[in-house]
């Protein structure tokens, strides 16, 4: 089984479980509060993942070490690249 099939299988299992709890497909009559917590779960996981990504980016920005020589060299290269692209006609 390929990796894609494994991920799709896992995702559909979780998706099925979520649909079962949210829409009461088996008529289990779970308490109302559990259904109310389960229903926004996909969106909640997406928002949490977004927050985690943002926090990781922020943390790595804050702890990145300065390298002055490399910074100067990079600025120089950016300038050259812009000049070159402008000569070839790319408008920014």
């Amino acid at each position, binding site marked *: 089984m390929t990796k894609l099939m494994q991920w799709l299988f896992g995702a559909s299992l979780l998706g099925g479980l979520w649909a079962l709890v949210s829409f009461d497909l088996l008529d289990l009559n779970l308490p109302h509060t559990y259904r109310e917590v389960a229903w926004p779960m996909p969106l909640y996981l997406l928002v949490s993942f977004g927050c985690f990504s943002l*926090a990781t980016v922020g*943390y790595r*920005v804050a702890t990145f070490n300065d390298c002055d020589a490399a910074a100067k060299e990079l600025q120089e290269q950016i300038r050259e690249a812009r000049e070159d692209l402008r000569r070839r006609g790319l408008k*920014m």
Partner: protein
Amino acid sequence: MATGVDQAVGMGLVLFSLALFSYYSVWVVVLPFMDGDHMLQQYFLPREYSVILPGIAAVVLLLMIGAFTAAVVWMNHKPKKVD
């Protein structure tokens, strides 16, 4: 260590995402288990907004990405030469 503004921006991002995560978690996971007249409920909008607001944010993000792409493509469009 990164200096000045970098550190401030980075830490600001971390704190913002922590705050957002905590607020959203309490909103979605904790609040349904509390009584309707609990003092904590007054700090949170009605629950429908916990779905609508991220939806709007996602739409706005996609719009901005699309607008940026469209702007760059439009500015670099060269009409084909006719032979």
